[in-house]
């Protein structure tokens, strides 16, 4: 099998992992040798027709795997073609693509072969070769295998910018049913171990012994949950996410709509991926992290533990809490402005700064490129008082008449990519 065929198989096998971030790591460059740089901001070097950013060379070392996770294209009982890169092949591909400015770095994962330690050691070897033999300064994201030896994890953290362990499903019972070899307590403990090391390295870097600080995954850890493969509702998914953010200080939880794979398991036949639901979960996740909402508040915007598919969760929440509105843009505190549908965090900062010197009018919102139709029902300005706040028809008016709204009803495919600003 030639290199191109291997690349096709092992990229295909890696694409169901939604993570693409290349941001937030330590600043490095190649002016004192080596190749590459990281400057804080992630770079999406291309976009595929699925709307997803291509930032890293995202591949598996091998798609052979002894685990039999029903949702996974690479499960042990799947009929897909198997392939395996050598360490040198991955290193060369990474450097060749990087020199052409096609990628920010490497996101390397692997099926579990032989043993967790053996697999982890192969991943570490790729990262070490890139860093030590080639002076590679670009971004490296390594998948971490929960049961791997702590010594290997320590080495992984030394070479990688980010480490991740995928929780895959939001509750233990689902994992037991669909991924029998995976063990939720072991995954939690591994995430806890990563948090301890990441914070240890940060403390060290802040302290006096700066020069000797052992580097450990400066861009932190992340995880992924598959949406729609099990029966978990949105409340369960977001509950698990909030626990993970709080307990293990994850940088990101990625939500990945369960997607048809070329050789699906009979346990989980192919369905249209629930893309709108995935999008709503990302919006809800943003509300939890940047807008001061609690999980219960976000969930209260929907029905029966599920988010409203037709409306973004902030609008859905506001419609159920109409007595909290209207909010006076010239007087209300920042926390209340953040709760207004259609106002993003940056817009709120601009309004708070501007109103010290001028009065906010509705036309100002348009100048700031805010959707006036979305915001107006919930706010008071010098020239505007909302009239429809108590109207039963407000919800219908706010459902956007876009392809996205149509898709929300039909479970179809539309909408902005998840990396975009979401409000």
């Amino acid at each position, binding site marked *: 099998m030639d290199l*191109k065929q291997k690349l096709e198989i092992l990229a295909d096998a890696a694409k169901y992992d939604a993570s693409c971030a290349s941001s937030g790591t330590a600043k490095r460059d190649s002016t004192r040798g080596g190749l590459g740089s990281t400057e804080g901001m992630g770079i999406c070097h291309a976009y595929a*027709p699925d*709307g997803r950013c291509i930032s890293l060379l995202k591949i598996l070392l091998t798609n052979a*795997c002894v685990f039999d996770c029903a949702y996974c294209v690479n499960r*042990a*009982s799947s009929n897909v073609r198997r392939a395996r890169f050598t360490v040198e092949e991955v290193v060369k591909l990474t450097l060749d693509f990087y020199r*052409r400015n096609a990628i920010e770095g490497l996101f390397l994962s692997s099926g579990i072969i032989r043993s967790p330690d053996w697999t982890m050691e192969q991943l570490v070897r790729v990262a070490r070769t890139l860093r030590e033999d080639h002076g590679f300064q670009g971004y490296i994201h390594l998948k971490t295998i929960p049961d791997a030896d702590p010594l290997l994890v320590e080495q992984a953290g030394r070479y990688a910018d980010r480490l991740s362990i995928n929780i895959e499903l939001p509750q233990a019972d689902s994992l037991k049913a669909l991924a029998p070899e995976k063990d939720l307590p072991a995954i939690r403990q591994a995430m806890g171990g990563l948090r301890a090391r990441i914070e240890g390295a940060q403390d060290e870097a802040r302290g006096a012994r700066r020069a000797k600080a052992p580097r450990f995954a400066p861009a932190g850890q992340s995880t992924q949950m598959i949406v729609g493969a099990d029966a978990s509702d949105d409340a369960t998914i977001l509950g698990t996410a909030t626990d993970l953010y709080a307990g293990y200080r994850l940088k990101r939880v990625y939500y990945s*709509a369960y997607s048809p794979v070329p050789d699906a398991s009979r346990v989980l036949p192919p369905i249209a991926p629930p893309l709108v639901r995935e999008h709503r979960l990302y919006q809800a996740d943003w509300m939890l992290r940047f807008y001061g909402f609690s999980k219960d508040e976000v969930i209260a915007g929907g029905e029966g533990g599920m988010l409203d598919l037709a409306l973004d969760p902030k609008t859905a929440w506001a419609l159920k809490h109409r007595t909290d509105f209207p909010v006076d843009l010239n007087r209300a505190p920042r926390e209340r402005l953040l709760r207004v549908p259609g106002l993003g965090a940056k817009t709120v900062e*601009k309004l708070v700064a501007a109103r010290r010197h001028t009065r906010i009018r509705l036309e100002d919102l348009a100048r700031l490129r805010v959707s006036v139709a979305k915001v107006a029902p919930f706010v008071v300005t010098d020239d505007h008082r909302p009239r429809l706040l108590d109207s039963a028809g407000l919800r219908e008016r706010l459902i956007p008449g876009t392809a996205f709204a149509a898709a929300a009803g039909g479970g179809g495919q539309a909408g902005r990519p998840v990396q975009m600003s979401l409000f």
Partner: protein
Amino acid sequence: MGVAAVLPGPADFAAWRNAARGLLAAGVRPEDAEWRVAGDAPGLFAEDAPPPAAGAAFHVPRAFVELAEIAIRHSDPERFALLYRVLWRLTHGEHALMQVATDPDVVRLSAMAKAVKRDAHKMHAFLRFRQVETEAGTRHVAWFEPEHHIEEAEAGFFVRRFAGLRWSIVTPRRSVHWDGQALSFGPGGRRAEVPPDDAVEPLWRAYYAAIFNPARLKPGAMRAEMPRKYWRNMPETAEIPRMLAEAPKRVAEMVARGGSAPNPNPQRPRHLAAASRVAADMDLLDASTDPKAALAALARELAGRNDLPDFARRATQAVFGEGPIGAPLFFVGEQPGDEEDIQGRPFVGPAGRLWNRALGDAGVPRDEAYVTNAVKHFKFAPTGKRRLHQSPDAGDIAYYRPFLLREIGIVGPRLLVALGATALRALTGKAMPVMKTRGTIVDGPEGLPVFATVHPSFLLRIPDQDGQQREYAKFVDDLRAARAQVH
């Protein structure tokens, strides 16, 4: 009377600033100033030379300078005039103008800066080098068509990233060259100067096609982030029409096929370590005689329970005690906290560290103390990046009580020390006020004496330093008194 300021280059901020200072010092109003780049066609006020730069300094907000340095690279010919108008307003009674994000001039200036930054970001992202072998060695050459005057400003990004390569970036207006040591700039060029292909491109195109998921077709989202104008200089985009055309068929086939039969020859573990069941059985055998094995078995038993309280399922792990078997003093705290939950060890968080210090100050040797918690899992409420401790209720305490009692039985202490109300309840089986019981001995399980004192987290919550010191001293006294009971 109008004047014309002629700048040497299209994005020369230093020259603009110099000219603007001169105009400002001469009191030239924005509508009387005309801005041109050398080589542009002369305008209305072509005959007027700009006034010389004066020594007078003008104080403007840093936010303006930062925005202006970027916005001046915009291709809009009116950028210089807009900058001067904003500068004029800032120095004529509107010093806070930059904070008024809703002002039309500020909106326009911000939009220009944003467009320049986006152009730069897309240059970092979408520029593709092609590798060529020359007599002087390997070179990397790229053709790119930026919308704004960003070539010189962004050269540094490519130097930092590719300092070890020798490269050239050619655009219609400028060319940038890095020879491994120094940057040089030249005139613009043509696309034909850049080689038409590269040996690695077939692999890159194959990767681009393979990483695409046909079941998530969102071409609009792709075009929003990667507008068509960039496509002709990106080799992988040649694959897009085929990818789009084939996607519906690929998905229909997947769905029509449904679930497929498991592979008759599945991947098998070859060298996976055998399940640790044998080791577990060994532990069970030893548990009756070896206390360490008995503690391990107890922890495993708890982990295997399927009636754990809900909060326990959200903890990282159960945390049992630490200390020597046979320790005369058996300390019981409330429950593991955030750090204990992560490390899997009791009393390693802030309260635990304080307890450790007090133990030393009371002269209690560590080999006389075993320490554990009444509740074995961390009960918390998540808030952002923190987990807030939640007190265990009577039901939680009752659930873990049998495990605590068996832990006591295995360690075999002479005195139980209850740290706080939860421990006191767990050890006595009933709710008792800590402050009233403190320093006294009450009856515990199996007739063992229980000595009550406060939980060290109580000391951490005292707001004033005097109170802290006073309570700490009392706590140390309590520990000393407890030790006296077993000596």
